[in-house]
Protein backbone atom coordinates (compact mmCIF):
# COMPACT_ATOMS: atom_id res chain seq x y z
CA UNK A 1 0.00 0.00 0.00
CA UNK A 2 1.20 3.44 -0.84
CA UNK A 3 0.84 6.25 1.60
CA UNK A 4 0.13 9.45 -0.21
CA UNK A 5 1.14 11.67 2.66
CA UNK A 6 3.79 10.43 5.03
CA UNK A 7 4.31 12.35 8.23
CA UNK A 8 7.43 14.43 7.98
CA UNK A 9 9.45 16.53 10.32
CA UNK A 10 9.02 20.21 9.66
CA UNK A 11 12.15 22.14 8.71
CA UNK A 12 12.96 25.62 9.87
CA UNK A 13 15.80 27.53 8.25
CA UNK A 14 17.28 30.41 10.19
CA UNK A 15 19.03 32.91 7.97
CA UNK A 16 21.78 34.98 9.55
CA UNK A 17 23.84 37.29 7.41
CA UNK A 18 26.04 38.93 9.98
CA UNK A 19 27.22 38.09 13.44
CA UNK A 20 25.42 40.42 15.76
CA UNK A 21 23.56 40.75 19.00
CA UNK A 22 20.20 40.60 17.24
CA UNK A 23 20.97 37.03 16.12
CA UNK A 24 20.03 35.83 19.56
CA UNK A 25 16.49 37.16 19.21
CA UNK A 26 16.22 35.52 15.78
CA UNK A 27 17.53 32.19 17.09
CA UNK A 28 15.26 32.35 20.13
CA UNK A 29 12.21 32.92 17.92
CA UNK A 30 13.22 30.07 15.59
CA UNK A 31 13.76 27.65 18.47
CA UNK A 32 10.41 28.62 19.98
CA UNK A 33 8.68 27.91 16.67
CA UNK A 34 10.59 24.64 16.36
CA UNK A 35 9.41 23.60 19.80
CA UNK A 36 5.75 24.35 18.98
CA UNK A 37 5.91 22.74 15.57
CA UNK A 38 8.26 19.84 16.47
CA UNK A 39 10.57 21.00 13.71
CA UNK A 40 14.29 20.69 13.20
CA UNK A 41 16.36 23.81 12.79
CA UNK A 42 19.11 24.57 10.33
CA UNK A 43 21.05 27.75 10.89
CA UNK A 44 22.42 29.16 7.65
CA UNK A 45 24.98 31.85 8.22
CA UNK A 46 25.49 33.68 4.94
CA UNK A 47 28.62 35.77 4.59
CA UNK A 48 28.72 38.06 1.57
CA UNK A 49 31.61 37.12 -0.72
CA UNK A 50 32.98 40.63 -0.77
CA UNK A 51 32.71 41.08 2.98
CA UNK A 52 36.34 40.22 3.69
CA UNK A 53 37.95 40.12 0.28
CA UNK A 54 38.54 43.25 -1.78
CA UNK A 55 37.90 42.97 -5.50
CA UNK A 56 41.16 44.69 -6.49
CA UNK A 57 43.99 42.39 -7.66
CA UNK A 58 46.43 41.46 -4.92
CA UNK A 59 49.92 40.03 -4.76
CA UNK A 60 50.29 36.49 -3.43
CA UNK A 61 51.20 37.51 0.12
CA UNK A 62 48.31 39.92 0.44
CA UNK A 63 45.98 37.33 -1.04
CA UNK A 64 47.14 34.78 1.51
CA UNK A 65 46.58 37.23 4.34
CA UNK A 66 43.07 37.90 3.06
CA UNK A 67 42.26 34.20 2.89
CA UNK A 68 43.55 33.70 6.43
CA UNK A 69 41.41 36.60 7.59
CA UNK A 70 38.44 35.09 5.82
CA UNK A 71 39.04 31.70 7.44
CA UNK A 72 39.36 33.34 10.85
CA UNK A 73 36.08 35.16 10.32
CA UNK A 74 34.43 31.88 9.37
CA UNK A 75 35.81 30.19 12.46
CA UNK A 76 34.72 33.07 14.67
CA UNK A 77 31.24 33.01 13.15
CA UNK A 78 30.93 29.25 13.75
CA UNK A 79 32.09 29.53 17.34
CA UNK A 80 29.77 32.46 17.93
CA UNK A 81 26.80 30.49 16.57
CA UNK A 82 27.60 27.42 18.65
CA UNK A 83 27.96 29.55 21.74
CA UNK A 84 24.66 31.33 21.16
CA UNK A 85 22.73 28.14 20.41
CA UNK A 86 24.31 26.34 23.39
CA UNK A 87 23.34 29.31 25.55
CA UNK A 88 19.75 28.85 24.39
CA UNK A 89 19.96 25.20 25.43
CA UNK A 90 19.10 23.61 22.10
CA UNK A 91 22.43 22.49 20.61
CA UNK A 92 21.22 18.95 19.89
CA UNK A 93 18.47 19.91 17.47
CA UNK A 94 20.33 22.58 15.52
CA UNK A 95 22.41 22.10 12.38
CA UNK A 96 24.93 24.69 11.23
CA UNK A 97 25.70 25.75 7.75
CA UNK A 98 28.02 28.64 7.05
CA UNK A 99 28.27 29.74 3.44
CA UNK A 100 29.82 32.53 1.44
CA UNK A 101 27.55 34.16 -1.10
CA UNK A 102 24.77 36.64 -1.62
CA UNK A 103 22.82 36.32 1.66
CA UNK A 104 19.30 36.22 0.17
CA UNK A 105 20.34 33.71 -2.52
CA UNK A 106 22.20 31.48 -0.06
CA UNK A 107 19.34 31.48 2.44
CA UNK A 108 16.62 30.90 -0.19
CA UNK A 109 18.68 28.08 -1.69
CA UNK A 110 19.03 26.42 1.70
CA UNK A 111 15.30 26.82 2.34
CA UNK A 112 13.97 25.19 -0.82
CA UNK A 113 12.22 22.47 1.19
CA UNK A 114 11.74 24.41 4.41
CA UNK A 115 8.43 25.04 6.13
CA UNK A 116 9.53 28.33 7.63
CA UNK A 117 12.39 30.78 7.17
CA UNK A 118 13.33 32.96 10.13
CA UNK A 119 15.36 36.12 9.50
CA UNK A 120 16.02 39.32 11.38
CA UNK A 121 15.28 42.83 10.21
CA UNK A 122 16.86 45.95 11.56
CA UNK A 123 17.69 49.50 10.74
CA UNK A 124 20.85 49.72 12.78
CA UNK A 125 23.02 52.14 10.82
CA UNK A 126 26.08 51.29 12.94
CA UNK A 127 26.31 47.95 11.10
CA UNK A 128 26.91 49.58 7.74
CA UNK A 129 24.10 50.25 5.33
CA UNK A 130 20.87 50.90 7.20
CA UNK A 131 18.97 49.20 4.40
CA UNK A 132 21.08 46.08 3.88
CA UNK A 133 19.27 43.75 6.23
CA UNK A 134 15.96 45.20 5.21
CA UNK A 135 16.70 44.40 1.58
CA UNK A 136 17.94 40.90 2.37
CA UNK A 137 14.87 40.08 4.44
CA UNK A 138 12.57 41.67 1.89
CA UNK A 139 14.22 39.71 -0.96
CA UNK A 140 13.67 36.55 1.02
CA UNK A 141 10.06 37.44 1.86
CA UNK A 142 9.26 38.18 -1.79
CA UNK A 143 10.88 35.08 -3.28
CA UNK A 144 10.44 32.41 -0.63
CA UNK A 145 8.13 29.48 -1.32
CA UNK A 146 7.39 29.03 2.39
CA UNK A 147 6.31 31.50 5.09
CA UNK A 148 8.99 33.90 6.29
CA UNK A 149 9.15 35.02 9.90
CA UNK A 150 10.76 38.46 10.19
CA UNK A 151 12.13 39.28 13.62
CA UNK A 152 12.49 43.01 14.25
CA UNK A 153 15.41 44.35 16.24
CA UNK A 154 14.13 45.86 19.43
CA UNK A 155 16.08 47.64 22.15
CA UNK A 156 15.47 44.65 24.44
CA UNK A 157 16.52 42.01 21.91
CA UNK A 158 20.08 43.32 21.72
CA UNK A 159 20.79 42.69 25.39
Amino acid at each position, binding site marked *: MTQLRTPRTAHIVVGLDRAGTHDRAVLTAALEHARHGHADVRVVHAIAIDAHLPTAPLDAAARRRQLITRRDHLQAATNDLRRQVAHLGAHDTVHYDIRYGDPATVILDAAQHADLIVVG*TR*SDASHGSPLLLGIVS*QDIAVHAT*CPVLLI*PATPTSSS
Partner: protein
Amino acid sequence: MTNRPIANDRRIVVGVDGSTGSATALRWAIRQAERTGATVEAVSTWQNPAMSGYAIGWAPMAYDGDSLATIAEKTLTETVADVTAQHTTSVDIVTHVVQGHPAEILLHAANGADLLVVGSRGHGTFAGILLGSISQHCVQHAPCPVVVVPQDQPSR
Protein backbone atom coordinates in the same frame (compact mmCIF):
# COMPACT_ATOMS: atom_id res chain seq x y z
CA MET B 1 0.59 38.77 41.25
CA THR B 2 -2.53 38.28 39.23
CA ASN B 3 -3.60 35.17 37.38
CA ARG B 4 -4.41 36.37 33.93
CA PRO B 5 -5.72 33.82 31.47
CA ILE B 6 -2.91 32.94 29.07
CA ALA B 7 -5.22 32.68 26.07
CA ASN B 8 -6.02 36.38 26.27
CA ASP B 9 -2.34 37.34 26.31
CA ARG B 10 -1.36 35.48 23.19
CA ARG B 11 -2.62 37.06 20.00
CA ILE B 12 -1.84 36.42 16.35
CA VAL B 13 -2.99 39.29 14.15
CA VAL B 14 -3.65 38.56 10.48
CA GLY B 15 -4.56 40.97 7.69
CA VAL B 16 -7.46 39.80 5.53
CA ASP B 17 -8.34 41.63 2.29
CA GLY B 18 -10.35 38.94 0.55
CA SER B 19 -7.48 37.81 -1.70
CA THR B 20 -6.38 34.18 -1.97
CA GLY B 21 -3.12 35.23 -0.38
CA SER B 22 -4.84 36.60 2.69
CA ALA B 23 -6.90 33.40 3.03
CA THR B 24 -3.62 31.45 2.97
CA ALA B 25 -2.23 33.81 5.60
CA LEU B 26 -5.31 33.27 7.78
CA ARG B 27 -4.96 29.50 7.39
CA TRP B 28 -1.32 29.69 8.51
CA ALA B 29 -2.25 31.94 11.45
CA ILE B 30 -4.92 29.48 12.64
CA ARG B 31 -2.52 26.53 12.41
CA GLN B 32 0.11 28.47 14.33
CA ALA B 33 -2.48 29.46 16.98
CA GLU B 34 -3.38 25.79 17.43
CA ARG B 35 0.24 25.11 18.34
CA THR B 36 0.73 28.02 20.69
CA GLY B 37 -2.73 28.44 22.22
CA ALA B 38 -3.11 31.95 20.84
CA THR B 39 -6.24 33.76 19.73
CA VAL B 40 -6.43 34.79 16.06
CA GLU B 41 -7.43 38.36 15.30
CA ALA B 42 -8.45 38.71 11.66
CA VAL B 43 -8.31 42.37 10.65
CA SER B 44 -9.86 43.92 7.56
CA THR B 45 -9.49 47.58 6.67
CA TRP B 46 -11.22 50.02 4.37
CA GLN B 47 -10.57 53.56 3.24
CA ASN B 48 -12.96 56.11 1.86
CA PRO B 49 -11.78 56.88 -1.68
CA ALA B 50 -13.91 60.01 -1.67
CA MET B 51 -11.28 61.64 0.51
CA SER B 52 -8.70 61.44 -2.25
CA GLY B 53 -11.39 61.93 -4.87
CA TYR B 54 -12.04 65.51 -3.77
CA ALA B 55 -8.42 66.37 -4.34
CA ILE B 56 -8.63 65.57 -8.04
CA GLY B 57 -12.09 67.06 -8.50
CA TRP B 58 -14.08 63.89 -8.15
CA ALA B 59 -17.54 63.87 -6.72
CA PRO B 60 -17.78 61.16 -4.09
CA MET B 61 -21.18 60.02 -5.32
CA ALA B 62 -20.30 56.46 -6.17
CA TYR B 63 -18.90 55.79 -2.72
CA ASP B 64 -20.60 55.50 0.55
CA GLY B 65 -18.46 54.89 3.63
CA ASP B 66 -20.99 52.63 5.25
CA SER B 67 -21.24 50.36 2.25
CA LEU B 68 -17.43 50.06 1.99
CA ALA B 69 -17.32 49.08 5.64
CA THR B 70 -20.08 46.54 4.96
CA ILE B 71 -18.16 45.11 2.01
CA ALA B 72 -15.01 44.80 4.12
CA GLU B 73 -16.98 43.13 6.88
CA LYS B 74 -18.65 40.71 4.45
CA THR B 75 -15.29 39.85 2.83
CA LEU B 76 -13.75 39.19 6.22
CA THR B 77 -16.64 37.03 7.42
CA GLU B 78 -16.62 35.03 4.18
CA THR B 79 -12.85 34.47 4.27
CA VAL B 80 -13.01 33.24 7.86
CA ALA B 81 -15.96 30.99 6.99
CA ASP B 82 -14.18 29.54 3.93
CA VAL B 83 -10.97 28.83 5.81
CA THR B 84 -12.66 27.29 8.83
CA ALA B 85 -14.91 25.21 6.58
CA GLN B 86 -11.81 23.58 5.05
CA HIS B 87 -10.04 23.19 8.35
CA THR B 88 -12.09 22.74 11.51
CA THR B 89 -10.41 24.43 14.43
CA SER B 90 -10.95 25.07 18.11
CA VAL B 91 -8.96 28.31 17.92
CA ASP B 92 -10.81 31.50 18.93
CA ILE B 93 -11.05 33.81 15.93
CA VAL B 94 -11.94 37.45 16.53
CA THR B 95 -12.71 39.72 13.56
CA HIS B 96 -12.18 43.47 13.34
CA VAL B 97 -13.11 45.86 10.53
CA VAL B 98 -11.28 49.16 10.85
CA GLN B 99 -11.27 52.28 8.72
CA GLY B 100 -7.84 53.60 7.78
CA HIS B 101 -4.55 52.90 6.08
CA PRO B 102 -3.89 49.13 6.05
CA ALA B 103 -0.27 49.41 7.25
CA GLU B 104 -1.15 51.75 10.10
CA ILE B 105 -4.15 49.70 11.19
CA LEU B 106 -2.23 46.42 11.13
CA LEU B 107 0.78 47.84 12.96
CA HIS B 108 -1.55 49.27 15.59
CA ALA B 109 -3.43 45.98 15.96
CA ALA B 110 -0.12 44.11 16.19
CA ASN B 111 0.91 46.06 19.27
CA GLY B 112 1.55 43.50 22.00
CA ALA B 113 0.70 40.61 19.66
CA ASP B 114 2.83 37.45 19.27
CA LEU B 115 2.81 37.70 15.50
CA LEU B 116 1.53 39.77 12.61
CA VAL B 117 0.71 37.57 9.60
CA VAL B 118 0.26 38.89 6.05
CA GLY B 119 0.04 37.29 2.63
CA SER B 120 2.87 38.08 0.24
CA ARG B 121 0.42 39.04 -2.48
CA GLY B 122 -2.95 40.58 -1.80
CA HIS B 123 -5.16 43.05 -3.58
CA GLY B 124 -2.38 45.57 -3.30
CA THR B 125 -3.28 46.47 0.23
CA PHE B 126 -1.56 44.23 2.75
CA ALA B 127 0.96 43.03 0.19
CA GLY B 128 2.18 46.59 -0.15
CA ILE B 129 3.21 46.52 3.46
CA LEU B 130 6.12 44.24 2.70
CA LEU B 131 6.68 44.47 -0.99
CA GLY B 132 6.11 48.11 -1.76
CA SER B 133 7.85 51.31 -0.85
CA ILE B 134 6.14 51.45 2.54
CA SER B 135 7.60 48.06 3.35
CA GLN B 136 10.92 49.12 4.84
CA HIS B 137 9.21 51.54 7.16
CA CYS B 138 6.62 49.01 8.28
CA VAL B 139 8.88 46.04 8.85
CA GLN B 140 11.30 48.22 10.75
CA HIS B 141 8.47 49.67 12.84
CA ALA B 142 6.56 46.45 13.44
CA PRO B 143 6.03 46.05 17.17
CA CYS B 144 6.24 42.26 16.89
CA PRO B 145 7.58 39.55 14.56
CA VAL B 146 5.96 39.54 11.11
CA VAL B 147 5.22 36.43 9.03
CA VAL B 148 4.90 36.76 5.26
CA VAL B 149 2.99 33.81 3.81
CA PRO B 150 3.38 33.12 0.07
CA GLN B 151 0.22 32.55 -1.90
CA ASP B 152 1.12 29.17 -3.32
CA GLN B 153 1.90 27.69 0.04
CA PRO B 154 1.31 23.93 -0.19
CA SER B 155 -0.73 22.65 2.73
CA ARG B 156 1.64 21.13 5.23
